[in-house]
């Protein structure tokens, strides 16, 4: 079968062809379509798929499935791996039983990411979990299949590291069409605490076993993953990975250069022997990688023995921040090959940016102006992740700080305590509350601070494309589920002052704000009104 596929769709095809039967994760851009699509096809293919409450519970769900003998796929965006990391590190020690692939999608240039331009490759070093980096949708398919093979051969989870330009790249992909089967595969957990329990002194043995596995992978030959092309007699070579490889090929073709390229599919562990052989005869090597120069550091270390005179270029000719493209790589290649480079001069144009904005009819339009009008001057506003973060941009310009999922409340607690009760209003969406707001709420109640917490409950996980969450009453596979109410959880956590309202009733909202602003303990207003896009879509049905 050959069809134009998005990188994310190709990952799904690869997982299906590998017999995946358990899918978990948390929606984020640029990985969300993986879970979304599994939600649509899960029943048809006999796969269990869920949106978990966060990336940690998502990873843990798949660990349980793997220990029970089911092949699993975990999907998340870059920051998700920070949340999941607490379970990720011990997972490397225990290893898996059935194959497991963890998709981690970075977003260089922060196209759809607020908090940082994260380079998640560092987690491979931290966890010792093998990491593969596909360049295009065909490789998304091929590498996913290979990842399951490697995972089962070495009993290790494999991280498939992608970026926006890979997840959201399209091309014709050759793949094997899997016959649907509506039969769900049932796992069987066979007790084996020797493998599944990390507890010293076993922990130290496990680390030794893990490092031995990594050594074995390192010394094996991975010709499908790490490839050399170009004229090996040339004295200048290129080492690259991910989407940068595609830009580099484009640039070399345009410059009519046939330099040797080592394209690395394995980011961790690196094929050290192959790299040493590649750089042995070279005078110069250019390492083309996005963000921090991890490969460059490794290659510099390897060159010390293999070729001490080698001139290594990398972050001295390429930026450490912002995604790479043909223009940036062209400039770097020209520098290394001493060719003349004529920079394309972007014309200067005086146009204000058209930034993201709340949709027409968005219920949040009703919230921000009222807040600004009612609160005393000097009130601090904390923003969170999701559609509410658009409140950071003009015309709202609401927030005094904005971090990661759940942090609006967590940080407000600290400010409230540190300042002896300076008025502070953290604002969070419903999905984020379930993701990581609850522990922050318990902390604020238990340690007695007094923020006025506002939850904008638009009845869906909107920003990433309308995914279900525990407040919706439906699961990813469209099964009924108890609808968890934000206010009931807050009450159970010990919040006494709670108001649930529809913000369209401005007076009611104003009165609640005025009343709660006088409280010297934590209070909560839940602004409950459905996302406008979702309302329009539901009306059409």
């Amino acid at each position, binding site marked *: 079968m050959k069809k*134009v596929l998005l990188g994310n769709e190709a990952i799904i095809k690869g997982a299906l062809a590998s017999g995946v039967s358990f899918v978990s994760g948390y929606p984020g*851009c*640029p990985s*969300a*379509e993986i879970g979304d699509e599994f939600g649509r096809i899960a029943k048809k293919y006999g796969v269990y798929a869920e949106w978990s409450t966060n990336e940690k519970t998502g990873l843990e769900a798949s660990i349980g499935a793997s220990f029970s003998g089911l092949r699993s796929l975990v999907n998340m965006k870059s920051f998700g791996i920070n949340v999941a990391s607490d379970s990720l590190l011990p997972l490397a020690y225990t290893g898996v039983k059935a194959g497991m692939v963890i998709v981690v999608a970075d977003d260089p240039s922060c*196209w*759809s*990411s*607020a908090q940082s331009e994260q380079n998640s490759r560092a987690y491979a070093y931290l966890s010792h979990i093998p990491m593969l980096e596909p360049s*295009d949708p065909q490789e998304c398919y091929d590498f996913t299949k290979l990842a399951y093979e490697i995972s089962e051969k070495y009993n290790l989870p494999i991280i498939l590291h992608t970026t*926006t*330009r890979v997840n*959201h*790249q*399209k*091309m*014709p992909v050759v793949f094997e069409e899997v016959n649907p089967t509506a039969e769900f595969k049932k796992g069987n957990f066979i007790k084996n605490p020797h493998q599944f329990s990390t507890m010293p002194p076993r922990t130290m043995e496990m680390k030794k076993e893990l490092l031995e596995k990594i050594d074995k992978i390192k010394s094996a030959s991975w010709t499908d993953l790490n490839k050399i092309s170009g004229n090996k007699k040339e004295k200048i070579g290129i080492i690259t990975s991910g*989407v940068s490889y*595609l*830009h580099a*090929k*484009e640039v070399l*073709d345009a410059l009519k250069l046939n330099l040797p390229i080592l394209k690395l599919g394995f980011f961790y562990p690196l094929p050290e022997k192959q790299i040493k052989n590649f750089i042995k005869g070279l005078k110069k090597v250019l390492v083309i990688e996005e963000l921090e120069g991890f490969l460059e550091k490794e290659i510099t270390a390897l060159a010390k023995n293999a070729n001490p005179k080698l001139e290594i270029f990398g972050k001295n000719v390429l930026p450490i921040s912002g995604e790479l*493209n*043909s*223009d940036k790589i*062209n400039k770097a290649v020209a520098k290394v090959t001493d060719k003349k480079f004529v920079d*394309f001069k*972007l*014309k*200067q*144009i005086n*146009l*204000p*940016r*058209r*930034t*993201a*904005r*709340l*949709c027409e009819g968005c219920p949040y339009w009703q919230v921000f102006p009222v807040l600004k009008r009612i609160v005393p001057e000097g009130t601090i506003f904390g923003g969170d992740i999701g*559609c509410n*973060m*658009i409140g950071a941009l003009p015309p709202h310009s609401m927030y005094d700080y904005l971090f990661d999922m759940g942090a609006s409340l967590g940080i407000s607690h600290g400010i409230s305590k540190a300042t002896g009760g300076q008025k502070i209003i953290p604002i969070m969406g419903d999905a984020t509350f379930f993701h990581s707001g609850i522990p922050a709420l318990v902390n604020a109640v238990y340690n007695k601070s007094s923020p006025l917490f506002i939850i904008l409950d638009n009845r869906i996980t909107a*920003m*990433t*494309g309308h995914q279900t969450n525990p407040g919706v009453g439906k699961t990813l596979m469209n099964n009924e589920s108890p609808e968890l109410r934000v206010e009931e959880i807050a009450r159970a956590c010990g919040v006494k002052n709670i108001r649930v309202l529809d913000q369209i009733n401005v007076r009611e909202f104003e009165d609640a704000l005025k009343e709660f602003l006088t409280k010297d303990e934590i209070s909560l207003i839940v602004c409950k009104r459905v996302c406008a896009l979702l309302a329009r879509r539901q009306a059409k049905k």
Partner: protein
Amino acid sequence: MEKTFNIILTGVGGQGIITMLSLIDEAAVVEGYDVKSSELHGLSQRGGSVEAHVRFGKKVYSPMVANGQADLIFAMEITEGLRESVKAGKNTVILVNDYFLAFNEKVLKEEALKNLKTLKNQLYLVPASQVCKDKLQNEIVCTTYLLGYASNKGLLPLKKASLLQAIKNIVPEKYQELNINALNLGYVD
């Protein structure tokens, strides 16, 4: 076609640019070309500027068009056309939907249009939104209309039959007729 054909699509999130991109991808495959494209989802899609790239030819590596290398810029909105024009090379054709979506009091339609017209590039200003609104009572398919328009004028090296086939391959059945009508309308001089 000897050289890879490079297209940049631009507009405002929600204007249907991803579907337009998919139609080009599919039509290029129908004609036997290699194709790569790049799009953006999520925050960047929420009513802000969006930019997508598509390249087709004998063999395509990068999914993105280098600065100055676009053969064609499709702009679904005037300001965004002007914004994208900084990446135009001297041979880039710029095709702009005559549609203005205000977002800042400092940006006026007349001025944006004037600036567009001072560009040295070959410029087509097409009332695609208006035509589709008048004739099809639907503005969103102006993307499909513009594909027909560009193909008809020889600005987009894809045949009508391929674009039709692309619609049949990827557009949900209930919107196929509408898209076919929009495409046909693009071929009416």
